[in-house]
Each structure stands twice: as structure tokens, then as C-alpha cells.
């Protein structure tokens, strides 16, 4: 009898262990599509870095408790090789072959849009950072039967970011110049993102009282001197090197040599990169990060985040801060899943994301999705003292409440 009791106890213990193992084995498949090779690699690597860190932290904290089960995130990371055809193939594989519940990525507008045509019909959530998605995220597209119902833009609307940035740049530069700046030149790459971003930034500067000239350069330009000489002839108070950070790092030293303007703004160049490259200018230079700088952040939680991010082996690049456009949303998504209590009800998860908020690293104010699946948060702008590489002063100006005149907000 005692033996039977012992046997039953052992069987029960074995069953409990088996159940425990089964519970531990529940996994939540999440896809990441990003350029880990090719020309967009510096942006693509940030998505992968953020995803790895977020998944590790969520899993280490015990996973996601959905209903009576606990799920560990299993990442399926695919390199799109900066190629739209590979992006499509990877999306098909993740959605149809693997059956992921959500996809993070990609780094470019074109790829994200093509991908959304696969994730949408399959009801797979997609978190993309491209602010240019604002051009297609409208009432019809995000409606329940719309093709972008399951797509979320993890970056603010461009008029908000542009407004926040323009205010930050002008507030830092104005005291440094002999007279308040009145004439700005926006220098931008002539591609999809550049066209979209600059159309909003020009309006934001005009709303701040600037007379603005727009000068575009062909993508992949390396010798900017002819265009910079032309800009010099316009006698601007500020030259704004708008998108993208990599091209700006090539163009900015050329501008300094030519003495194009009495002050500059470098979009997407982190103070950390400015310091590491020992860049110096004899005029005031401002720079912004997308969205918060890793090189000179005043927020302890941001510093903590980047210590962990770089601790996982991520490279320090001009676009490292972009990783924050993806990191917080893992936790927000996990929170929504826990609230819904099911992982197979994407409509309920979408509804929950739209009515909930999340306070993460990217913003001291809780994040909220608007009806077009976009968030709002400010952009950090820093200024480096002339003739130094590491003395920064930073400002965070809140985005305007409404689009400036002439900006349709899309």
C-alpha cells in the first residue's frame, strides 16, 4: 500500500513536472524583418538589437502571462538584405510558414508598405518605425476592413516630430547668434523618406517665422561641394542637414570647410557619434536624435537602456537611437496580450492597443496610439559648444498641438 502511495506521489510529481515543462515551452513567435546587410544596415541593426534586448528582458522576467499560460517570446529574425523582394519573401515565410503573431520592421517606407499587404490580410500585427507611413495611415486604411488595420507606426507623426525639432533647434541656436535667425536652408536627400520628412520640416520652420529654402541632393551623393557652394550664396543663418544621418556625416565636414553658414543643425546625428568622431566646428552646431540621444541623454532610464543595448553587442552608430522606436512596443504589445487574455485574437489586441497607454523609455509621457495608429512624443535636440566635441546642452521641446499652416498633417 505504501509502495502504491509512493508510486502515485511520484507519478503526480512527474505529471506536475511535465505540465511545468509544457507550460515553460509555450512560445510566442514574433518576427523581425530588418536589413542586417546592404545599404540600410545601420538602421536595420537597431531593430534587431532592440528586439533582442526586449525579448530577453521579457523572457527573463518570466514571460507574458496570457490567460492561464505563460509565453516566452521566440524571435524569428530575417535579414531583408535591403531588398524589397527578400523582404516580401521573408514576410511570407514568417506569416505563412512560421505563423508569427506580430512582426517588427522594416526600416524603410517602401518595404513596410509592401509588407503590410501581407500582414494585413493575415491579421498579423506590424510595428514599423517609418514616420512616412503617415502618408497612408488614414481613416479608410486603418478601419476594421482596411489594409493597415494591423499596422502601427511606432514613430510620431512627422509634423509633430518636425515641430518639436524645429522649436528645439531654434531655442538652442538663437542665443548663440548675433541676431535671431531668419533664413534657413533645409538640405535633404531626394528620396521617399527625404521628400516626405522635408515637406513637414519646412512648414514647421516657417511656422516658427523662418524663411526657408529647400535644396535636395540625389541619394548616394558623396561630393556635396557644388550644392553647398550654392547654399552659401543664399546666405542662410542656419543650414539644416535633414535626413539622413549617414549622408550628413559626409556632407557636414565639407560644409565646415566651405564655411557655408554661421550655424548648423544635423538631423539624426547623435552627440555620441559627434564625440567619437572628434568632430569640431567653430560655429554652434545642433543635432537631434530619433527620438532620444544615446550620447548625451539627461534621462537615467534612457542611459540605462543604452548601456544594456550596447552591452548586448550592438554597434554605436548615428542611428543607434532609432532602436527606441521598436523597444517599448514589445512591452506594450505584451501588456495588451495579457489584458486580452488570448494570443489568437488580433482584433482584440488592436482594440486594446488603441485604448491603452504605456510608459516606457522613449518618452517621459505615456505613449498613446491615436486613431491612425500613431504615437506622440518629443524629439531631443542637443547643441555642442563651438570648438569642442563633447560639451553638449540638450533641450526637449514638446510637439505642437496641431499641424502648422499648409501642413495637412498626413
Amino acid at each position, binding site marked *: 500500500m505504501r509502495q502504491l502511495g509512493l508510486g502515485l506521489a511520484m507519478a503526480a510529481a512527474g505529471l506536475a513536472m511535465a505540465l511545468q515543462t509544457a507550460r515553460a515551452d509555450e512560445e510566442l513567435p514574433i518576427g523581425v524583418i530588418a536589413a*542586417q*546587410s*546592404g*545599404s540600410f544596415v545601420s538602421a536595420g541593426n537597431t531593430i534587431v538589437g532592440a528586439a533582442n534586448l526586449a525579448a530577453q528582458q521579457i523572457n527573463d522576467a518570466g514571460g507574458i502571462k496570457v490567460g492561464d499560460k505563460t509565453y516566452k517570446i521566440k524571435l524569428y529574425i530575417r*535579414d531583408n*538584405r*535591403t*531588398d*524589397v*523582394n*527578400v523582404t*516580401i*519573401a*521573408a514576410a*511570407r*515565410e514568417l*506569416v*505563412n*510558414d512560421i505563423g508569427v503573431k506580430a512582426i517588427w520592421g522594416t526600416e524603410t*517606407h*517602401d518595404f513596410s*508598405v*509592401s509588407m503590410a*499587404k501581407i500582414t494585413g*490580410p493575415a491579421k498579423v500585427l506590424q510595428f514599423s518605425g517609418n514616420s*512616412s507611413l503617415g*502618408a*497612408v495611415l488614414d481613416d479608410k486604411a486603418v478601419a476594421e476592413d482596411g489594409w493597415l488595420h494591423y499596422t502601427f507606426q511606432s514613430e510620431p507623426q512627422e509634423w509633430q516630430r518636425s515641430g518639436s525639432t524645429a522649436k528645439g533647434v531654434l531655442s538652442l541656436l538663437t542665443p548663440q547668434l548675433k541676431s535671431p535667425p531668419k533664413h534657413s536652408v533645409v538640405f535633404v536627400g*531626394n*528620396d*521617399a*523618406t*527625404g*521628400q*516626405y520628412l522635408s515637406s513637414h520640416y519646412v512648414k514647421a520652420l516657417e511656422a516658427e517665422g523662418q524663411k526657408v529654402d529647400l535644396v535636395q541632393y540625389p541619394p548616394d551623393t558623396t561630393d556635396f561641394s557644388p550644392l553647398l557652394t550654392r547654399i552659401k550664396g543664399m546666405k542662410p543663418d542656419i543650414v539644416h542637414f535633414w535626413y539622413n544621418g549617414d549622408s550628413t556625416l559626409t556632407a557636414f565636414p565639407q560644409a565646415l570647410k566651405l564655411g557655408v553658414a554661421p550655424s548648423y543643425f544635423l538631423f539624426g546625428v547623435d552627440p555620441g557619434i559627434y564625440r567619437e568622431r572628434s568632430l569640431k566646428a567653430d560655429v554652434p552646431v545642433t543635432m537631434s536624435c530619433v527620438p532620444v540621444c544615446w550620447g548625451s541623454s539627461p534621462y537615467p532610464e534612457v542611459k540605462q537602456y543604452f548601456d544594456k543595448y550596447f552591452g548586448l553587442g550592438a554597434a554605436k552608430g548615428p542611428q543607434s537611437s532609432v532602436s527606441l522606436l521598436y523597444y517599448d512596443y514589445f512591452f506594450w504589445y505584451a501588456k495588451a496580450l495579457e489584458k486580452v487574455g488570448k494570443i489568437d485574437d488580433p482584433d482584440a489586441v488592436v482594440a486594446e492597443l488603441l485604448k491603452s497607454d504605456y510608459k516606457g523609455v522613449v518618452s517621459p509621457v505615456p505613449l498613446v496610439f491615436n486613431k491612425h495608429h500613431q504615437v506622440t512624443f518629443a524629439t531631443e535636440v542637443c547643441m555642442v559648444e563651438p570648438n569642442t566635441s563633447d560639451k553638449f546642452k540638450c533641450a526637449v521641446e514638446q510637439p505642437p498641438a496641431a499641424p502648422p499652416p499648409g501642413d495637412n498633417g498626413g
Partner: protein
Amino acid sequence: MPMTDNSAGKTGAATEGVRARDRLALLTADNAAVPLPAGVQAITAILLAVLLIALPWLGLGYRFLSIAITTLYTAIGLYGLGLQFGQAGIMSVGHAALMGVGAYASAILSVQLGLGFWTSLPFAMALSAIVGGVIGLPTLRVGGQHYIIITFCFCALFVIVLTNGGTFTGSATGLDVGSVTPLPGINFDKLSNNYYLVLAALFLALAATYLIGNSRYGRTLRAIRENEQLARSVGINVDLHKLGVLMVSGLFAGLAGVLQLYYLRHISPTLFGAFPSLYLALMVMLGGARYLYGPLIGAVVVNFLPEVLNLDPVDSRIAYGVCLLLVILLLPGGVGAGIKNVYCAVRGGFEKQGGGTNGRA
């Protein structure tokens, strides 16, 4: 000294004409034109068709099928390039722009007029053909590298126009379209159905290429390719034929462009710039422009090589460069020629073993 005997002069001119035609016949009878035995051709065609039709049933996954679709529509564009380069000897490094003309024509018709895939297709193909002919006009005066530079310029210009075309072309952001209009009982949102649609178009391209290559028209094009002056001297309207083949090439490119558009459902100018065009030229040279299956082989190699060997874009470009060098040095006619040579060598070996009389008519 001028000849005084008129009849002797006429006879001499006639003899020269006959010699010219003989030379032309010799020139057009290149290795690629020497056909494989009909049985081998038929078996190859059947095996290839069965393989391509069975592909979605082999359980290779959606990723594989997606890349297969990319490969097939690329191959359709390459068949046009193969015709103009392989048959008529006119190389282009702006062929992606011609595909772009078709894709953008279809997308603009969809956005502006609400035309779907089937209704916009003929217009898009026709426009690509016309543009192909217009770009070809300079070939009547210049050839070789000059024409190649012109096509490159066209490609760059096309991208600039699209990028700055405002809402009409969608600027750099591009244009979006819906799904392929379904046929009764066939929904093309299903990936395998989309694959069969592109495959059907590929079969059409293959059939057209075969028919052109084996027709009087094909022989005329090869005559122009081998010796333009000689072809002109025997009365061939070289200008007309050159423009003609460029327009046919444009038709193929337009078809490929529309298929690409409805596969991606979003297009932007970067898809039709210099790099994609150079890749098309690379593919057709790798596969072999003069061989029926050459363009398909080129498309398969370039699209699947990075996938099979897990190469990043930098490694891929190095690999393509090495492959191209090897092909130029070892297989001047491309991989297609290499496969044919291997077949002929193996067959020759068997024939020697069997006394050298078997298998030949």
C-alpha cells in the same frame, strides 16, 4: 578602270550578291543556332514545364515560392533583353526602366482611372513597346557602347522624372495598387495562384522567343547582329528591324513590369534605377542571351544564389562578379551554352564508344 561590258558587269554584281548571301548564311549559323535533336528539346521542355508547374506542390514553403515569383517575372523581362541582345546584338543597361514604364503605366491607370490588372495590361505593354522604340531611335545612328550609354541615361532620367513627378507618379514614395482582379474561381491573392499567373506569362515569353528565334525574322535579326553592313547590302531593312526588336523587347518588359507591380502591390522609383538594370544585364550575360533557357537560368542564378549560399549583398556582388568573369573566360555563351556543350561532349563520348554512328540523322 570602269568596266565597259554591261552584261559582264551585271553578272559580276549578281555573283557578288550571291556571295554576300552565302556569307550571311554562314554568319547567322552560329553555334547557338545549331539545334539540339528534336527529342532532346522536347524532353527538356516537358521536364522544365513539369518542374515549374509542380513547384508549389513540393512543399518548399512560401519564402521559396515568393523568390520563385520574383525569378519568373524577372526572367520575362530578360527574354525581351535576350531578344534584343542575343538575336539583334543590341545591349541595354536601362532595361529595368522599360519594366518601370509598364509598371508605372499600369499603376497610374489604376490610381487615376481605376483600371485593374487585366484592363491596364495591354496599355502598359503597348506603352513600354513604344518607349522601347523611341529609345531605340538613336541605334539607327549609333551602336555598341554609345547606345549602352543612352540606355543608362534613359534609366537615370526615368528615375528623376518619377521622383519629381508629384502625386501623379507618387514621387519618391511611389504608388500602391490592389490585388490582381480575380478570374472566375481563381483568387490571385493566394500565392500559388499568383505564381501560376506569372508562370503562364513566362511560358508565353518562352514560346514567343522560340518562335521568333526559329523564324525568318529571327534569322534576319541574327544577320543584322553579325554584320549590319552586309545585311543592309542584301536588302534587309535594318532600321525597321532594329526598331521592331526593341519594341518587342519593350512588350516583354512591360509585361514583366506589370507582373512585378501586382506582386509587390507597391512600386517606387528605386526599383527601376541603374542597379536593377545592371543586374538584368548581368543575368542575361550569365545565363546566355542566345539560348532559349539562358535568360531563365540567369534569373535563377542571381535570385537564388544569395538565398542558397546565404550571401549578403556585398558578398553577392562579389560572387556575381566572379561568376561573370568565369563565364566570359570559360563559357562565352553563358551558362546555357555551357550546359549545351556538356551535353554535346557527353553525347559525343557515347557516340565514339558506340562506333560514332548512333544518334545522328
